[in-house]
Each structure stands twice: as structure tokens, then as C-alpha cells.
């Protein structure tokens, strides 16, 4: 069970919506540092399945995670058409591989719906809310849930 952050009813929030594992997700824009094209990474030994490797971000070594795998969704081999969203969370900088980035969504805090309790489980615990987008809906990701401060010892 996750704690639902209380969004301020009238607060205007901006999210970047993206597609990973053929589902729509969104990440708060303040957590995103930049968006880059996918380039081949250096793979790490003994890394968990979602960690693709590390890449060189202007001299910094940052790990790249496949967001779909991290969320337990089917993933395909990364290609040139994929996108890396560089996020800063818990004072770590991490790249998330996603299939595409769609748009910037502006919503009021009050419009974010709680994730239905029945849908909550191990794979969805980092989904903290739902946003309606025209016909569709997008899942709000809590990155600090997704990427805890200390990566579990991978030994």
C-alpha cells in the first residue's frame, strides 16, 4: 500500500507524458533534467534486469534503466528511436529508457485521481495517481518510490 500524496486541489502541476511498455505514464516535470536520444550503453555486470548499463552524460556516468522492465511490463530491444529521460531523484541522476515522449500535460491537483485500490500491487506501487488525457488516461509515476535512495545490493 502506498501513501497517496495529497495534491493541492488548486495547484497547477506539469507532467511530461511518455510511453513505456505501450502504456502511458507521466512524470512531474520538475524531476526531469533533460531528454536525450538513446545511444548504446556500457553494460554492468551483475545488474538487475531493468538496468541496461551506464552512459556518458557530459562526463558524468549515469545508469540507464528500462522503465518498462522496471515496471514489470514487456520490453523490446532498445533502438535508435527510443528516448532517455534523465531524471534527478533522491540526489541521484538516472536515465530512464522509454519508447517515446508525448507531450507536456498541465493538470490541476484536484484532477488527479487516486489509483484504484484493486489495481495496486507490487508492480504498480509506484503509480500514485491517474490523469485523464482527452480519451485516454495516463499513470502518474512517483520516482522516489520507483528508484529508492539506495539501490539494493545487487550481489
Amino acid at each position, binding site marked *: 500500500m502506498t501513501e497517496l500524496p495529497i495534491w493541492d486541489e488548486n495547484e497547477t502541476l506539469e507532467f511530461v507524458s511518455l510511453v513505456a511498455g505501450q502504456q502511458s505514464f507521466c512524470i512531474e516535470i520538475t524531476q526531469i533534467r533533460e531528454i536525450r536520444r538513446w545511444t548504446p550503453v556500457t553494460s554492468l555486470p551483475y545488474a538487475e534486469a531493468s538496468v541496461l548499463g551506464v552512459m*556518458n552524460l557530459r562526463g558524468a*556516468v549515469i545508469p540507464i534503466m528500462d522503465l518498462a522492465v522496471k515496471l514489470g511490463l514487456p520490453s523490446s530491444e532498445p533502438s535508435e528511436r527510443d528516448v532517455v529521460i534523465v531524471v534527478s531523484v533522491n540526489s*541521484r541522476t538516472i536515465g530512464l529508457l522509454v519508447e517515446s515522449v508525448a507531450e507536456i500535460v498541465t493538470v490541476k491537483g484536484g484532477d488527479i485521481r487516486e489509483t484504484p485500490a484493486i489495481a495496486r500491487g507490487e508492480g504498480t506501487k509506484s503509480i500514485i495517481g491517474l490523469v485523464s488525457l482527452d480519451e485516454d488516461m495516463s499513470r502518474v509515476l512517483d520516482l522516489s518510490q520507483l528508484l529508492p535512495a539506495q539501490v539494493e545490493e*545487487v550481489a
Partner: protein
Amino acid sequence: MSSDSLKATFFAECEDLLDALSAGLGAMADGSADGETVNAIFRAVHSIKGAAGAFALTDLVGFAHKFETVLDLIRSDTLTVDADVLRVITRSGDVLADLVEAAQTESGEIPEAMDALVQSLVTIAQDAVPAAGAAATMDFAPLAFVPLDIGPISVPSSRFAIAFRPERGLFDNGHEPLHLIDALRALGDLKVECDVSAVPPLDQFDPENSYLSWTMELVGPVSEGEVRRIFDFVLGLCDLKIDRLDDASVEDDLPLAEAGQEEATAIGEPAMTGEDRGQGLAPDAPASGKQPRAASAVAAAPPTTLRVDPERVDRLINTVGELIINQAVIAQKMRAMGIPPNAEVIGDLDDYRYLAREIQEGVMAIRAQPVKPLFQRMARIVREAGEATGKTVALVTEGEGTEVDKTLVERLADPLTHMIRNAVDHGIETPEKRLAAGKSATGTVKLSAAHRSGHVEIVITDDGAGLNRERILATAQRKGLVPPDAKLSEAEIDNLLFMPGFSTASTVTNLSGRGVGMDVVKTTITSLGGRVTISSQPGQGSVFTILLPLTLAVLDGMVVTVASETMVLPLSSIVETIRAKPSDFAPIGPNGMLMSVRGSHVPVLSLGGVLGLSDHDFDCERAVFVLIQTDSSEPVALAVDHITDQRQVVIKSLEGNYGSIPGVSAATILGDGKIALIVDTEAVLKMAAPKRSNLHALALETSHDRIAHLG
């Protein structure tokens, strides 16, 4: 500036001052002190006191004041420094450091030794000035906060002759002689005569030059210091001569340069001068013994330094690293474009490379720090340890000027402290035992630092009893670290000290056994990329040698390809590279493989296999073998696909953004902008070890290899 940042500045300055203090105390202890040394110590304590007052650090101010009083007596030659006094002031320096630390951590702790020391300080001060005893006692009152206000003792009137001739620069800087004369007038009766003889005829007159000079006579209850203080701001801008007319003991014609510099260097001193004269000294001997010291103050003036946030330097180092990588990228691309190697642009690129290297070296040098402060801290550890164990131990240091990376200096403090404590606690014998063994009662611990072919070598030598190998072995056997029937060589026994869970002291003393064992020492040093070795002679003492890389930011490595990944092996653990013939291999067990290297057989591991990048098999004919040897293992051959390059790489930590990876110590960025992982050879061997290790092998791991490094 917020009060927090002010406080941070205060503590940063305190650190420097405490360093100066312990340097001075060290000089006094080994007899190399001159007059200026005492002045420097006094200034350090006084400055700490002054600044501490601003932060209302009562304990600190109170103690510093008492300390200062005694120092002032020494400074004025009223008190002769004997062994007792020296011991008290040295310990006082330690307590002062403790108080500063307590203030910094806001723990409010008061060092145990303080009360006793305060007593000793008071006693020393009283004994030293029997005549002015009453005044001295008064000095210890809490009034210390407002030192300038104490002074109920009437000072007899003095007469001064002052000759003052401003130079042009005095007016250039906007000073006004009239204000100076007014200030003098405020001190007492002043007779002023102006000498206008130097004023030229009008046609040669330069309105911006200075032609006037004054001779003045001042009578009043003031000290010479107070008079001089008025001219503080114009020193060097005028000819100034101040003579005390009623005092025969003062040197005539005190050279101006000396007087000037004394005032200039003695930060915080002028404020005390008048009061000191009044209380500590007989009034008729105000300046004797003090002025000659001023001369050496000039020589000892510390070079100016720059205080920079280390993070800024780190960023600079990072950027310079990028610059070098960038150069390599350009070079690579130009080669790919088919530009001939003798083209002009290639020459320019070479210049670029040299410049980048030069910048890199320069930036690295910013991070470099002499080990001196670290060694000085150790002097204190020796004192404390000696006192706690009732042993007399002297610390001899060598190569204090050796510069190493700042991080190394910081991270070495704990392991060194532990090793020095151990040396005093376990190494040095009690005075009785030493005398019985025909040694001098005072034990010696020697701490030396030196550069050795790209490394820093720190050696801790004691002239104690040496390692008690029987007891070490017995303890290890009792703790099940080695099998009871194991036959170990002397070196192997020595290295048992570094095994986790080992502690020889049968009773955990106050000193050693504070939770850090020698295994922690070794882990710390290994994590710094260094190694530590022991050698010991029974009855003659032990030698601990620490070998460290010069910097933590770059590493000499061999670039290899493993399972289509590029990796870097640290050159420090590589013995040689080998291309082998199929006949050199012999299988051992179901999966193991041995390779014969000049007659000895070493196990072969597939690096890709150990790191989980490929399977454990390797192609005997096509693979290249890198023979590696680390502190804790016998040599092992690692099979890699290719060796590409040997170069310096900039270390980029993975811990911050990712976490630790087994077998990988860090990453680096290569010339093509790609990331290569730096292999942690020690960890790789450990990861591969379970298959072939048993208890005995574990003991053997810590064997000859290390000893080989000692030479």
C-alpha cells in the same frame, strides 16, 4: 554573512591556528624553538580566544585566557621553560584543540584533563611572578572576556621621544599626520615641534610631496606599545622613531624596520601589550627580550594562502578530465579522417594535449597537501597514548613536506591514529622493561613520508619489542582463524594481524580496541588504492609500511576488451601480460585451469566469466592473459580478449548514481566518449575464490606477496 557561515570560517581558521600551535609546541619540544616560536604560539592562542569570545564560547575563552597568560610569561622571559612547563603547555594545546572540537560539534563536552591543567597553569603563572602575584591571580578571574578593561594597576608615567617624518606615500594613501598627532595628544602631555627645514623654494616645490617632519615628546601613563599602535596604519609610509626616555634598559635607536614588522605581524598582539606590561612584567622592564624576537618574525611570516571550497576544485578536476578526453576524441576523429600524422594540425593538437596535461597537473597540485598537519595530529596521539599507558614515547617525523591528495590526508587520519596507538600501546615497552633490555627508557615512534616512484610511502617504525608472534598465532588459533596445526611462516603470522576478528590485546585497553581493528586499517588503505605491509624484528621493533597512490582522481590502467566490453585493469595489480601456448595449460578439477608461467602454475580465470558477462570458458589460443597479483592473493592469470591500450584514466565513481557493483571499483570515460568499467582486481579474485579456498588457503592469502612489496 550568516552567523553559521561566520562560525564555519571561525572553525576553519581555528584549524589553521591549532596547526600553527602544534607546530610551535613541537618546535619547543625538540629544542628548535626561537623567540618567534613563542610569539607564534601566543598569537595562535590569542586569536582563538578573541574569535571564540565573539561566539560566546565560554569554556574555550576561559581556558585560552589562562593558557595565554602562561605563554605571555614565557614570551616575556619571566618564566623559563623546563620539562614540567613544557608538558603542561603541550597538554594545554591538546585540550584547547578538544575544546574547539567540542564547540564545533556543540557537544558541550569538557575534556577530562582540563581542570587539572587549569590548576597547573594557574600555579605556573603564580610561581613565575611572585611579585606581581596578586595581579596575576586577578588575571584568572572570569573578567577575561573584556581583557582590555582590566588594569587597575597604575602604570607610572613614561616619557617618549617620537620622531616622525611622513613619506609621500602616507599622503597618497589618504592619511593625515594631524590625526596621528591628535591621537598622541589623547595619551598624555604632548610637546610637538615641526621641522620645516626641508621645504624647498617655491619653484622646486612639489605640492604632492612631503617635506615636513615632527619631533614630539610625550609624557603619560602609557606603554610603548600603545604609542606604536597609533602609527599602525602608517607603518612603512613614514620614518618613525620612538624612544623611551626614562628607561635605560631599552635599546637605543630601535631600528624602524623591526618595530614596524613586529606590529604588523603580531596580529591581535597590540591589544594585549599594554595590559601585559602592566601585569605580567615589572614596569621598568617593558620591552627587554621582546624586540629582538621581532626580527625573526619577518622570516617566519606565513605565506598567504587561498581558502577554496574543495568542491570547486573537484569540479575543475572533472572539467579538466573532460578536456583531456575531448582532446582524445578529436585526435581519434582526425585520424579517422585520414589526416597524415605530420600535418600541421596534428602538431597543434599535440600542443593542445600538452597544455591540457599541464592544466591537469596544476589542478591536481591544488588538491595536494603536505602531510604535516596529519603528522602533527599524530604527535598528540603519541602523547595521549604514552600518558595513558605510563610509557615515555617520543615521536620523530620525517618528510612532513611530502604532498599528497587532500582526500588521502583526510582518509588516512583514522588508520594512522590507530596504527600509532597500536605502536605505543602494543609495540613500545614500559620504561622498566626497556631499561632491562638495554634500551633508553624513552621509546621512539618514527613516522615518515616520502614519494616513491609515483606512490606515497608512509612508514611507521617503533623501537619496541616487536610482534609477539607466539601470542599472535595462539590468538588466531584460539579464534579459529587458522587451523590449530597450521605451520605458518613468520611473515604469515605477522599478516594475521590484518585478519578480521583479530585483536591481540587480551584486555581491551582504553587505547586500542576502540572498535577499529587492524583489518579496518587495511580495508581503509586498500579502499584508497594502497597497501600496507609489516615487518618486525623481535626486540627491535616493528615497521608498518603504507604505500598509496599519489591521487585518487586518476589511475594508470590497461585497457582491455572482455566479451565485447571495454574494461580497465589497474596497472598497480598487473605483474605481466602473457600470450600462452596450448601446451602451457593443464586442467585441474572439473572447471579449473592452470597455466604454467616460467615453471610455476597459476590458476586462470576468465574475467568475463567472473563478471558474468560471458561463460567461464576461454580460448587458450586467442585470449591474452594478464597476470595479476593483489595484496591478499597469490598470482592469478585473467583471460581477456584483447589488450588495447595502456593509459591514465580519470576515475568516475559509480556509487553516487548507481551503487556498488561486484568486481567493479569505478568507471572511466575513454577517448571515444564511451564508458569503460574499472575492474576491482581484489574483488574479482575474491569473487572467484570460494571455489578454491579453505581456511588454510585464507591464511596463505595473506602471505609472501605482501612481504615482496616491502622492499
